[in-house]
């Protein structure tokens, strides 16, 4: 049972990694002069949209945390709206934090906001897909020994890696190498993306190696 689930997780995560790689190459066939560095904002949009779509589809197909009771249509709509609001709020929050970290306030607002959207896609959207707009569940997952399935563990790892990646991505900005990828927010968004991809790959492996120790208490 566990082995099979790890395999499903691995497959889903590899699919995500693969789709990120696709977003860097495929649009070049449709858009003129597309490159991740050159037209970074376009790539940010494409990447966020495709990862969101993939995550939602995966969530619908795999149903890692099936909701126990069948809910009405109105309930579903309200849930969906709540999810949208949460996502938007997290974008705003990330934007604010990034500005507090020193991003320009007025110039390049679009860049900063799209970076915040990307970060939210990598972190909040995943949580929304897996756990729904249920703050209690979020708190549970992100506290010690709170994970109840390998999906929760995977969520922890990818979220942490994305944030860490973005954090480390800020390091090369002050260097005077004058490279195109040092321009705000390219290094940070690349850092977040690499962190996310690393998280996606590390998560199944880590769970596989620690499968003996991982005991999930049932609710």
């Amino acid at each position, binding site marked *: 049972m566990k082995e099979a689930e790890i395999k499903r997780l691995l497959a889903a995560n590899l699919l995500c990694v693969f789709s990120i790689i696709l977003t860097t190459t495929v649009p070049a066939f449709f858009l003129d002069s597309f490159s991740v560095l050159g037209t970074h904002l376009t790539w940010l949009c494409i990447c966020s949209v495709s990862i969101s779509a993939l995550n939602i589809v995966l969530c619908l197909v795999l149903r890692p945390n099936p909701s126990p009771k069948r809910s009405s249509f109105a309930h579903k709509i309200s849930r969906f709206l709540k999810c949208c609001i949460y996502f938007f709020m997290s974008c705003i929050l990330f934007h604010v*934090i990034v500005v507090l970290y020193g991003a320009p306030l007025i110039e390049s607002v679009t860049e900063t906001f799209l970076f915040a959207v990307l970060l939210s896609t990598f972190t909040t959207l995943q949580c929304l897909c897996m756990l729904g707009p249920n703050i209690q569940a979020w708190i549970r997952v992100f506290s010690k020994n709170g994970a109840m399935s390998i999906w929760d563990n995977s969520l922890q790892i990818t979220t942490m890696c994305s944030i860490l990646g973005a954090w480390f991505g800020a390091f090369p900005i*002050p260097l005077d190498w004058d490279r195109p990828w040092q321009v705000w927010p390219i290094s940070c968004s690349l850092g977040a993306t690499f962190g996310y991809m690393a998280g996606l790959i590390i998560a199944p492996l880590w769970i596989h190696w620690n499968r003996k120790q991982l005991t999930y208490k049932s609710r």
Partner: protein
Amino acid sequence: MRLRSGVFASSCLLVEALGVALFLRGFFPLPVRSLPRSEARRDPPAEPAPPGSGMVSNWTKIPPPLFKKVVIVLIDALRDDFVFGSKGKQFMPYTTQVIEKGTSHSFIAEAKPPTVTMPRIKALTTGSIPGFIDVIVNLNSPALLDDNLIWQAKTAGKRIIFYGDDTWVKLFPKHFVEYDGTTSFFVSDFTEVDDNVTRHLDRVLKREDWDILILHYLGLDHIGHMTGPNSPLVGPKLHEMDNILKKIHISLLSKEGESSLPNLLVVCGDHGMSETGNHGGSSEGEVHTPLLFISSAFEKRSGPLTQPKLVQQTDLATTLAVGLGLPISRNSVGNLILPVVGDKTMREQLRFLHLNGFQLSRLLQENTPAYEKDPGYEHFKIAEKSHGNWIKLYLDGNNSEILLNLGKKVLKQYLEALKTLSSSLSKQVAQYDMYSMLVGTVIVLEVLFLLLLITPKALSSRAEFEVPLSPPLFSLLFYLVCLMLCAVHVIVCTSAESLCYFCSMSWLTAVGVMVLISALMCGILSAIGKILESSRVPVKNPVVSNSSWSEVDVLILTGTIGHVLSLGASSFIEEEHQTWYFLINTLCLALCQELCRNYFLLKEGDPQHSITLKQSFDNVKEAYECKNIDIPAAGDSKLGKVTSSAEFIKGSDKWISLASPWIILICCRLLRSLNQTGVQWAHRPDFGHWLTSSEHKSELSFLAAVSLVMIFILVQRKCSLVSKIAMALGLLGVYSYRAAIGNIIFPWQHDSKDISKGITEARFVYVFVLGIVFTGTKDLLKSQVISADSSVKSIGLWEVYSGLVLLAALLFRPHNLPVLVFCLLIQTMMTKCIWRPLKFDAAQITIMHYWFGQAFFYFQGNSNGIATVDVSAGFVGLDSYVEIPAIFLTAFATYAGPLLWAIHLLCYLSSEVSRNSAAMGHGCFCYALVRSIPVAVYIILVTSLRYHLFIWSVFSPKLLYEGMHVFITAVICLFFTAMDQNQSRKVQD
């Protein structure tokens, strides 16, 4: 001997300060120095005497001047390609034509870093290379005291007129018969600075009553700083300069009569600019400047244009001295540029070269004991001898081809000798005194190891440990090491060729240092031995094994290590403020997460708090260490729990506490945009520049007034009544001081009053500063002697602190007063809302204080370059430059941020003593440790990078800042220890 951690730490820091001082002395050798100017006027040497008896050359005087009038046009930041490159062809048509077809000589003059205006002017006028330390030492005393061209010209009765950058006016007070200095303060001014120079030109060129005219144009430099070398503004500016040169040249030509001497026009740059438009470093663009000599005395250039030859910037002083018939400045290391005198007779040319060589060899004699072995000196002696032979032939009346050929040979010998002489003289400036550096490094490293090894014991609950003094001091090892080191010292010092500071110290001092080094070494060895011993004995230490690291601990550790590692990259040093801002931001988010955990996860998870819980979640994420939350999360079982009324009362406190990290983050963001600092983004618009510009004076006045009121509100709460009144009066005095010197205005005063130096007002504030500090010290002494309750002591400490705040308010420029306000605000919030409820230990709080102190150092507008030191702070309330108070005030104003945070730490820890009696000792120890680590690592880094391209522009200023910081930290730790001593005595009573 039992020692308290605080005592141990401060004695360690004192030793470390000694090591750092020794290292600095070795790293920054004093520049080549000659005798003072008063003795400079010795008789010039005669022509070398021809061999054989009876014949003596009758030419003993200095040769007469070659040019009548000299105009020096110095265009700031003129890069070589602006004249010789495509830009020059496009925008400077007249100059290009003169270079290509006219009577001119063109060269590329190489400037030595630091490529900053003031040292470059010194190099151009004295011919010496100002050492790095020379720039620092002379930061405050502007007048140039060395022998220099301008002084020589003035003494020779030449009338000099100067227009341009007022650095010249400060360097050469009373040297010019007429001058108009323009200030280079407003970098955004491109036209007015130059128009202020040019407007005098027509009038002066018509007159005949001057000999030397110096023009220093700043506009190009300002354009470079603001928009870079490739901006569209550069072209028109070069064109403007071209027109000015044309006007001067034509006017000079028209003045030349048939009989009189020709005139000379010199065009040069003090330094170039980098690709971003800045200067100070040693990149090709910054170092290479054009140097043009234009005069009708020269032959018209024939044949194709060749690439201009490379000369040194220092050569100009020598060449001009010869051209004006003046003695060559004594400290000059420059060589005569021969083409300029190329159309004189062979005898004259040889005479000039001999004078130059004689001056250089005399400078060498004065600076090196073993000058006779120097190849340059030997060459010069040989050349002098053959010069004598040539004169013999010449006086014999031999006037054939042989004489000319022989003369050319002597010329070549002279040139060779001059080159070698000046290169060995210039090398002296750049030579590192490796032995002193090594000794300093060893001391610093030993102290660091000792501190690191003793850490576990020093941070134990008693903050006291046994220092076994006698066993290592009487061991055989100690004596052996001592003897060995002394032997090494003798060997090194007897075999060293160059000057070595450590060797020139008295033997007793040197032996003392050796004993110190070996004692430290034995101390380290015994500490290691003890650690090994205790680890062999299997003692169960459950505390150590159990303690898990919280996120804040991990952050503190990685932050400290990361910062130290970042010092290896020059960009990270230039932009060090970014490192600190980044770290304190992350620290605030981590604290926020800690607070959320403290308030929510430990107690309840009721549904009302869902919004905050979301916040908490995001911060859990932010702190990127999501798994260490010790307490299992609130389950669904707690969902229905009803909050009690008591918790509602506590609620407001809780919200304030939760909001405080965010308020602190917003404060930091505001401060960050107050002063743009560093290098890459320094040109960005910021509030500071906006406020200081003249049209926003009323806004600045309003801000200053509000800030002063805020400072009073934040400071007064813990003061006694007397100091409250003194504080209020002092802050009023600060405002009137700033109004008196014209920074800000009173609301009722609309016309700009005449500006005074504000000495009365400033002294009025000093009185209150001293009064408050004195009251505080009195309280401290009282608490020590009478052993009153600790409240007297904490009031005393706070009064000392508020006195320093008042001093800082006086010394800070008015637009920086918000820094002080936010400093006090953040300290208050941190104390009330974060440190108290979270119960951090002293070590963590110390490091957080240190981080914030560092960040505030940069918030003030400081950077790791020397240009940002606000020298004006040293003149507040002083009539003229008085060295000791000026240095003290400047140092205080520069390090106000770290200092105020350190004193605040002391206040906070002394109030914590009731909870943890060892808090002060821990704090002092951690402060010393956290300062020692970067210094030790940086010293090693700088030693290994000493031939790096940016060593003078980036690494050396940072080294000075680090060294200064060590001295200040040592003083702070001594103060800590003094306070701690009181406490310990009381505890023992």
